[in-house]
């Protein structure tokens, strides 16, 4: 009763399944390899000095990436200041207000913005802030030149579409029944949103923000033309500032072995930061799924 090609079918079946498994291994491999090398090469350079000291001049060993680490945090803080309010409020608008046609366009545009290469963002902010002074009513608000502000701005702008979409998604998950109950009690729309909807969705919004921060923390290209990088501690926001991705890049393409080692160390720290943020987010959202059953 078996068809003549039965064995061929069995073979194809087994072959394809094996192939799929092999491909999965191939996908997982790079991350494992990267992590392995980061640990192997970078671990030796990680010490207290690494976190606290400035880079030493060329030729001297030692020193650290203290300024870059601090710089990254300063930039992220600025980015959050820009990205979070605009993104969250924008997400609120998309979810709670607005006509469906307009909203469709906004969502579409946001998705496209998410796909714009990060380097493009860099040269745009360069043209905005670095080339000329920003003047308001004749007073120079932001002098021209590379600056931490420019870096923070570009990262913040990149965060906006990301945070907007994730906020909207999370708000959509809040059951309509909550809103209706509030309206029936005579609470105004705005207060409903702030006190009930946002509060319910707060965990989701926070995870969306954290994910966006993790994403921009690793960006190098846009910072090349805005924050530029700095061998020293930044004293003001209108000066160039160091950041981890920039420092890693600069060290990586340099000819000095000691700098290479520090690049690995910096990469290890950066990757841990990014992975920690991501994993932390997954962990936070996991409870929700478990409760659902």
């Amino acid at each position, binding site marked *: 009763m078996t068809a003549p090609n039965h064995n061929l079918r069995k073979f194809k079946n087994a072959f394809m399944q094996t192939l799929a498994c092999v491909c999965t291994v191939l996908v997982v491999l790079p991350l494992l390899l990267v992590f392995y090398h980061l640990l192997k090469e970078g671990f030796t350079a990680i010490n207290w000095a690494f976190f606290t000291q400035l880079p030493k001049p060329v030729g001297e060993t030692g020193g650290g990436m203290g300024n870059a680490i601090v710089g990254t945090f300063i930039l992220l803080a600025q980015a959050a200041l820009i990205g979070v309010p605009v993104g969250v409020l924008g997400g609120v608008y998309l979810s709670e207000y607005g006509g469906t046609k307009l909203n469709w366009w906004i969502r579409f*545009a946001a998705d496209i913005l998410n796909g714009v290469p990060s380097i493009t963002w860099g040269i745009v902010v360069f043209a905005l802030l670095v080339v000329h002074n920003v003047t308001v009513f004749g007073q120079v608000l932001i002098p021209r030149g590379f600056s931490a502000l420019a870096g923070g701005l570009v990262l913040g702008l990149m965060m906006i579409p990301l945070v907007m979409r994730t906020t909207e998604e999370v708000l959509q998950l809040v059951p309509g029944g909550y809103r209706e109950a509030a309206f029936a009690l005579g609470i105004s729309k705005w207060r409903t949103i702030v006190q009930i909807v946002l509060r319910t969705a707060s965990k989701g919004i926070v995870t969306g923000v954290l994910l966006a921060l993790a994403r921009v923390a690793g960006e190098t290209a846009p910072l090349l033309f805005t924050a530029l990088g700095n061998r020293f501690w930044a004293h003001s926001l209108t000066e160039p500032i160091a950041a981890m991705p920039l420092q890693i890049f600069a060290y990586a393409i340099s000819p000095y072995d000691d700098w290479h080692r520090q690049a690995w160390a910096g990469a290890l720290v950066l990757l841990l930061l990014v992975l920690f943020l991501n994993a932390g987010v997954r962990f936070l959202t996991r409870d929700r799924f478990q409760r659902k059953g």
Partner: protein
Amino acid sequence: MALTIFALILLIGWELVRGAKPAMLKFGWHFLVSSDWDPVNDVYGALPFIFGTVVSSFLALLIAVPISIATAVYLTELAPLWLRQPLTMFIELLAAVPSVILGLWGIFVMVPFLRDHLFPWLQKSLGFLPFFQGPIYGVSMLAGGIIVAIMIIPIITSVSREILRSVPGLQREAAYALGATRWEVTRIAVLSYAKKGLFGAVILGLGRALGETMAVTMVIGNTPQIVKSLFAPGYTLASVIANEFNEATGDLYPSALFEIGLVLLGVTVLVNIFAQLLLKTFAGPSVQPQH
């Protein structure tokens, strides 16, 4: 507030065009087809970079697409149940690795490996093809393609996985009931059904590949040239901006780079629009491009 999105789009377009204007006026369409990139004499042609971006992205797709879709199939149909969720999360974490870190690994680990092992082997076995002839440096177009592939695999896999999961179980059952093997069920009921969505995922990956900057810059060799050999160094649109922007003096030089940025933006946006439309008409609003 939400309307800032439109403001941002306009802003990007406006600034890029403004910056690119001098170069556009000087070179016109010639910019896109000329290969002369000569900052010393203030002559600029973008063709080598267009070539570099296109070829490296194409290579990346060639490598990434089969692997990603096979992995998505494994995750949705074949993997043991307890493994699926952790594996999926792991792959999503892979998408979070910053480009510069992968580039770092690329320079110091991948490129030497390619130079000392993989490329010579390729030259030995496939050297009759013009792609695999020529001197081997390690940094090369092919290295660029490989590293971009590594960067886009997670996103293609994630989106493909969502798409495959949305195929109705009833379709699979129909195939099983006819006495199909597991692979046949996947082929007939799942992959065929999901063709359009999978295509959208691929195009999304392409969009990501085109804009990839740091990792490529670190392994591609950064030499503007158009040659057949995959072992030869190349240069992409994004890389030239990254490398030369801060050194660009004068008026025309930066402007040419702005124009390159404009070209890059134009191509990326078009590809992304195409991908979004495909995905939206297949799976509805549930499929999100960000990881």
